[in-house]
C-alpha cells in the first residue's frame, strides 16, 4: 500500500474517532487533546495532525472509554493517534524518503550507519598506524592521539549541521501545514502561554493522566513510571548535551584538551546524564514493548541513546587502557549515527510536540 493511502486511512479513522469523541466529551478533563477538540466541529487533516502531536499517549482516555472494543464503535484514541503521529513526522520530514526508510528499518539502519562510521574511523587510523588503536594513551589530548581533533570536529559538526538543517526544514513545513497563527511576541498572553508550554514540557504534565497520578500501562491502574523514565531520558539527554557543550567551550575557547579529569564539569555532567540515559531508555523500551508499541523510529532512537551512554561509560572507565581506541571509534560512530538519523527518529517528537503545545496554548 502506498504511503498516502496509509496516511489517508489513518486520518479517516482518526476523524471518525473524534466525531464520536466530540459528541461525548467525557474525556475533556484528561488533556489538551480533548480541550482542543471541542473547538472544532469538523476535523481537517491538519487539525488531526495537530491533535496527534498533542497526544502524549498516556492512554487514560482509552481505559476510560465506554466505546472501546468490543463496543461496536471500537474507539481507541491513543492507538489511532499513535499511528498518525509518526506519519505526520514522515510526511513533513526532509527528505521524506529517509524517514520512511527509517520507520521500516530503524534499528538496523542506525546500527549500520554507526558501524560504518566506527569502521571508517577505526580503519582510517589503523591505516595510518597499526598500533594506534590498541596502544595506551594517557593524559591530556589522549583522545586526539587516536583520532585527530580536526576529524572529530569536522565529522561531528557536519552531522549536527545536517540534523539541524533537516529538522528546521521539517519543522517549518509542519508549521506551514498548520497555518500557525501569528502572535505578537511581546504581548503578555504570549508570555503566559510560553510559561504554560515550558511547564507542560518540563513537568510532562500530559503524562500525568489529567490527575497527576500518571499513565495507564498494563491496565486501568495509574503509574508515573513512564513519566519518570521519560524524565530520566530527557534530562539525561540534556545533561549529556550540556557536557558536550561545556567540553567544546573548554577546547575551542579555552584551549584545554580532553580527556578532562573525573571531577571536571563536563565529565560530571556526562556521568549524571549518562546514568539517566542508561535507565530512562531501557525503561521506556520495556514499557513500550509491554504495550506492543515498538516502531522503528522510536526503537532506533532509544537503542542509540542507550548504546551511546554505555560506550561513553566504557570509555570513562577504560580510557587509560588499550581498549580505549576501539571504544572511542565505536562511541563516536554511534554519536555520528545518532545525529545523522536524528531528524527521522523519535527525537523529532520533541519538536512536533513543542510546536503542538505552542499552538494549543496560544489558541486557547
Amino acid at each position, binding site marked *: 500500500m502506498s504511503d498516502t493511502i496509509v496516511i489517508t486511512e489513518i486520518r479517516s479513522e482518526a476523524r471518525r474517532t473524534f466525531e464520536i469523541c466530540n459528541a461525548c466529551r467525557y474525556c475533556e*478533563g484528561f488533556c489538551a487533546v480533548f480541550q482542543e477538540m471541542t473547538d472544532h466541529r469538523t476535523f481537517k487533516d491538519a487539525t488531526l495532525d495537530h491533535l496527534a502531536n498533542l497526544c502524549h499517549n498516556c492512554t487514560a*482516555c482509552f*481505559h*476510560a472509554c465506554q*466505546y472501546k472494543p468490543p463496543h461496536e464503535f471500537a474507539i481507541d484514541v491513543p492507538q489511532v493517534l499513535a499511528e498518525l503521529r509518526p506519519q505526520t513526522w514522515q510526511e513533513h520530514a526532509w527528505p521524506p524518503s529517509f524517514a520512511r526508510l527509517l520507520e521500516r528499518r530503524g534499528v538496523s539502519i542506525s546500527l549500520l550507519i554507526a558501524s560504518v562510521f566506527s569502521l571508517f574511523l577505526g580503519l582510517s587510523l589503523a591505516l595510518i598506524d597499526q598500533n594506534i588503536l590498541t596502544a595506551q594513551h594517557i593524559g591530556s589530548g589522549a583522545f586526539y592521539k587516536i583520532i585527530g581533533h580536526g576529524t572529530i570536529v569536522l565529522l561531528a559538526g557536519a552531522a549536527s549541521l545536517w540534523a539541524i538543517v533537516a529538522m528546521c526544514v521539517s519543522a517549518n513545513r509542519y508549521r506551514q501545514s498548520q497555518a500557525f497563527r501569528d502572535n505578537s511576541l511581546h504581548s503578555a498572553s504570549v508570555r503566559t502561554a510560553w510559561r504554560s508550554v515550558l511547564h507542560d514540557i518540563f513537568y510532562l504534565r500530559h503524562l500525568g493522566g489529567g490527575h497527576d497520578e500518571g499513565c495507564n500501562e498494563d491496565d*486501568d491502574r495509574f503509574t508515573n513510571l513512564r513519566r519518570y523514565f521519560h524524565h530520566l531520558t530527557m534530562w539525561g539527554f540534556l545533561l549529556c548535551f550540556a557536557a558536550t557543550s561545556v567540553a567544546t567551550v573548554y577546547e575551542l575557547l579555552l584551549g584545554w584538551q580532553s580527556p578532562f579529569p573525573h571531577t571536571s564539569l563536563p565529565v560530571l555532567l556526562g556521568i549524571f546524564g549518562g546514568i539517566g540515559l542508561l535507565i530512562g531508555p531501557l525503561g521506556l523500551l520495556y514499557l513500550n514493548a509491554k504495550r506492543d508499541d515498538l516502531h522503528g523510529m522510536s526503537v532506533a532512537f532509544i537503542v542509540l541513546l542507550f548504546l551511546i551512554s554505555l560506550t561513553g561509560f566504557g570509555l570513562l572507565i577504560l580510557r587509560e587502557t588499550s581498549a580505549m581506541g576501539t571504544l572511542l571509534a565505536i562511541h563516536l560512530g554511534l554519536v555520528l549515527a545518532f545525529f545523522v538519523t536524528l531528524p527521522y527518529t523519535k527525537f523529532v517528537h520533541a519538536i512536533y510536540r513543542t510546536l503542538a503545545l505552542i499552538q494549543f496554548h496560544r489558541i486557547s
Partner: protein
Amino acid sequence: MKLRPMPRATAKEHKKLVRTSIKAGTNILVIGGGHAGLCAAISAREAGASVVLLDAAPESMRGGNSRHTRNLRAMHTEPTATLTGQYEAEEYWQDILRVTGGETNEALTRLVIRESYPLLDWLSERGVKFQPSLRGTLSLDRTNAFFLGGGCALINALYRHATQIGVAIHYEKEIEHVELSDGTFRWAETKAGETFRAGAAVLACGGFQANTDWMVEAWGDAARNFLIRGTPLNRGYVLRDLMAQDVLTKGDPRQCHAVAIDARAPKFDGGIVSRLDSVPFGIVVNRAAKRFYDEGQDFWAKRYAIWGRLVAMQPEQIAYSIIDHKMHDLFMPSVFPAITANSIPELAAQLGLDASALTDTISQFNAAASEATCDHTILDGRTTTGLQPNKTNWAQPLDQSPYHAYPLRPGITFTYLGLKVDHHARVQINEDTAAPNLYAAGEIMAGNILGKGYCAGTGMTIGGVFGRIAGINAAAGLTI
C-alpha cells in the same frame, strides 16, 4: 399484569449444583456490578464481610449503565473542589418534588439527599476522580459533580478498589432466580443452574428496559421501536422473578427516563453520543410531516427528557428534527451527520415523507414565525401565532437552504418500576415486613425516589447512597 416466572433448573439438577457450588465463606452476595453494586460490595467488604459480586456482563463490558454516565447530583452548603456555589438540601428536595410531581417517598429521598454529600468524598477516597469544573455545555457545575473521564473511569476505579480489598468478582453470571423462603434470602441461581448461597444479598442489577418482551407488555408493540441507551443486560430477570414471588414493587412499568435520541443509534449501548440537541433550533414533524409539540417550550436541558415519550406516542415511534442552514452550527455536534438537501421536497424524499405535506407544514410555520433573529441563550419569547401547536420560543422561519434533518426515536435510559425498599435498603416483602437479609440498590429501586420525571445526576446518587446503605446493613445484619 400476568407474570411469567423465569425458567429454572429442575429440582434434581438443582440439588446437585447447590452442593457443588456453595462458595465457602460467602457472607454477602452482590448481584450486579454497576455503580450501586460496587458501592454495596465495597461497603460490605470494608465492614468485614466476605463478599462475592456477580455481573452478567463479560469483564470487557462490565459496569452496566453506570459506564455511560458522567456526573452525579450532590447537595453542598458551600463550594467544593468540584462543585460551585451551594446546593442546599431543601433546594434539592424541591427539585425532586417538582420533577416527580410528588410521586416520591419523602423520607427516602431526603436520605439520598443527605448522604449525597459524603458520597463524593467516599468515592474519592476509593480512587474515583472528579473533574475540577466544566467549560459549559451543560451548565450543571453547581449541582452535579463530573467524573474525570466519565462513568467508565469511575467504574474502573471502583473495580480496582474492590479487587484490592478482596471482593471476589465473577463476570458472566446472569442470575435468573433468587430463592426466598419465609421472606428470607437463601440463594441465587443462574440460567445454567449455578447457585450462589450467602447470608445476605444485595440486588443491584438495574431496571428492565433491555427486556423487549417486558417493554412490549407495558407499552405494546411501540416498544419494539425503542432504543436502549445503555447495557443490553438490564433485563429485569431478578425483578421479574421476585414479582412472581409476590415481593412488593413500587412504580408503574411504563414510567422510565426516556429521551429523544438519534434514530440511527444502535439498539443498545449507544450511550451519550446518540444525544441530539437540534430540536429547539427548528421544528419537529412526525411520519405524517405534521408538527405535534412545542419545540420551544423551554431550554433543551429541561425538555429533552419529555421528548422520548412524545416521540413514543407518534406513529412508528419516529420523528424528524428539521433545521435550516443558519442553525446548523449552533448546537453540539452530533455523531451522526445531518440528512441534508437543498430544498424541502428533496429533504422530504430523503426522509421518506410526503413532500407536499412537509412543504405545507414548513410554509405554515414560516408564515406564523417571527422574522427577528432569536436568542438561544434566553427564553426569548419569539413565538409563532395561530399554529396548533405553537412554538413559543425561538420561532424563526426555516428559509435558508440547505436544510438539515435528524431522525428521532425514543431512547430509554432506565425503567422506574422496582422493588420497594425501606430506609435500610431492605426489600419489602409486604407492607409490614422487610426481608431480613435481602437488600436492593440503584436502578432496581430508583422508583422509590423517582415515581416519574428525572433530575440529571440522581440515578448515580441513588445508586451510590443506597449501595452504601445496603452494603453496610447487609454486613451488620450478618452479625446480629
